[in-house]
């Protein structure tokens, strides 16, 4: 069995958050980010954090996964802290900036952990649909995106196969000299691209035979319907946004 490389962080838990409509999730992300970035009101941010905590609990995904995302930006946070101190900004300003970044990361994680790749692409497609007025073929953009997502793991997998084959002949990739590493990588790149293109070709043929048509409207079997939680979230965010703008 091949190493199953995933670039998606989706964890299937069938939680209420999982079942939310994807377009609505993406719209809520936009609203959330808008509120978070324009507001410097501590009460609003407290409210936003409170909402995040509730959603995290509803998502049934371990808090450790969320903390992993924060780990990636720890240096960014430290950097911002240092810059702000140098610029002699007020402590509360610094504090809110850091909170904003954390909110951004947490809410984005919320979406990516509870939505599969294909759902995300489908939701994105729906959001971009208004652009069709300007004659931009949004379904093709979504299609190209989903193909790229499909292909990156395959290319990495191909690379892994070759390295595995070399290691079973006694060449431990990690331990080889740099000179030899370069020799191997240099030789591998073109065949991998070749093989990936060949696979892409066969994949395209398989899709064509099964009557895939980018231009036609397809049924989406798995697509989530608009749920109650979607309505609550949207109304809540719009409400908060209005408050922020008015006050």
């Amino acid at each position, binding site marked *: 069995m091949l190493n199953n490389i995933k670039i998606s962080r989706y964890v299937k838990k069938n939680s209420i958050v999982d079942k939310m409509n994807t377009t609505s999730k993406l719209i809520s992300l936009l609203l959330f980010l808008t509120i978070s970035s324009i507001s410097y009101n501590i009460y609003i941010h407290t409210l936003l954090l409170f909402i995040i905590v509730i959603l995290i609990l509803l998502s049934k995904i371990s808090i450790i996964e969320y903390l992993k995302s924060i780990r990636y930006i720890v240096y960014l946070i430290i950097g911002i802290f240092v810059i702000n101190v140098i610029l002699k900004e007020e402590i509360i300003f610094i504090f809110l900036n850091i909170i904003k970044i954390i909110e951004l990361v947490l809410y984005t994680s919320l979406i990516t952990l509870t939505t599969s790749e294909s759902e995300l692409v489908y939701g994105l497609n729906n959001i971009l649909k208004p652009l069709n007025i300007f004659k931009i073929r949004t379904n093709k953009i979504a299609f190209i995106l989903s193909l790229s997502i499909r292909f990156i793991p395959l290319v990495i997998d191909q690379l892994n196969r070759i390295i595995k084959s070399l290691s079973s002949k*006694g060449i431990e990739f990690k331990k080889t000299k740099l000179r030899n590493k370069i020799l191997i990588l240099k030789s591998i790149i073109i065949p991998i691209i070749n093989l990936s293109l060949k696979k892409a070709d066969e994949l395209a043929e398989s899709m064509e035979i099964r009557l895939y048509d980018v231009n036609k409207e397809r049924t989406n079997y798995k697509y989530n319907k608009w749920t109650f939680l979607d309505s609550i979230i949207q109304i809540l965010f719009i409400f908060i946004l209005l408050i922020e703008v008015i006050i």
Partner: protein
Amino acid sequence: MEIKFNNVDYSYNKINYLEKEVLKNINIEFLEGKINGIIGRSGCGKTTLIELVNNLLTPTKGLIKVGEYIIDSKKKFENINELRFDVSMVFQFPEEQFFNPTVKKELEIILKLFDYKLDQIEKRIFDVLKMVGLNQEYLNYNPLKLSNGEKRKLAIASSLIINPKVLILDEPTIGLDSKSKNDLIKLIRILKNRYNKTIIIVTHDIDTLHKIADNIYVLNDKKIVLQGNKYEVFKNVKELRKYGITVPKIIEFSNKVLLKKNIKIGYRDDINDLIKDIYRYAK
């Protein structure tokens, strides 16, 4: 070079931290200098078993003795590269692992990575091509443009080039036509008889395996459920069906005659021998 499994378990953790057991309590020994076949349902862990032999995977419990090397689940195994000089593996669909523009370069690269001298490289390549039955003129061909049978031979050649004592083959006959299969059978026999290599084959091509194997190991539900020489194993027609395996037709026939007519016509490899038996008993 003895290969022995002592109380070996193997499991891996899936993403959601749920442990998945693949092999449990494996206690077998592969016969040195012989052709050992591993069979079992699709997905039962055959590939995992062989990846434990050359340490692509480490057992979660137990000990594996490969010649003078001991792979212990409790310690880190230090001599991976040395082990793999002696135990070489040819993967499924090896044609997907060629990455050099000529046969010569494909065979050279391993030796170059081990800093072999140029004249040694030339000689090794010459020898190994002869071993697998490929003409020297193949050196300049593009590996991807060879026929399936030739690709397989090249893949085996590139595993033989470091002169291992043990050769492991994962589904070597898949996708080959009749002639290429027969060539492969001849090659494997030569490797055993002339070059004294120990061969381990994982396959579901029972008919091919029947022609060459000495010993068979049957894997089912994480355990080895049957092992022994091929006649001992294959005569258990009904039991093997439970494990998803159909025996070679030549054995199935003799078995049927025994069960239905109570006549023992012997289990054979070659159909001509079977015909002689039938002729003797059919009067």
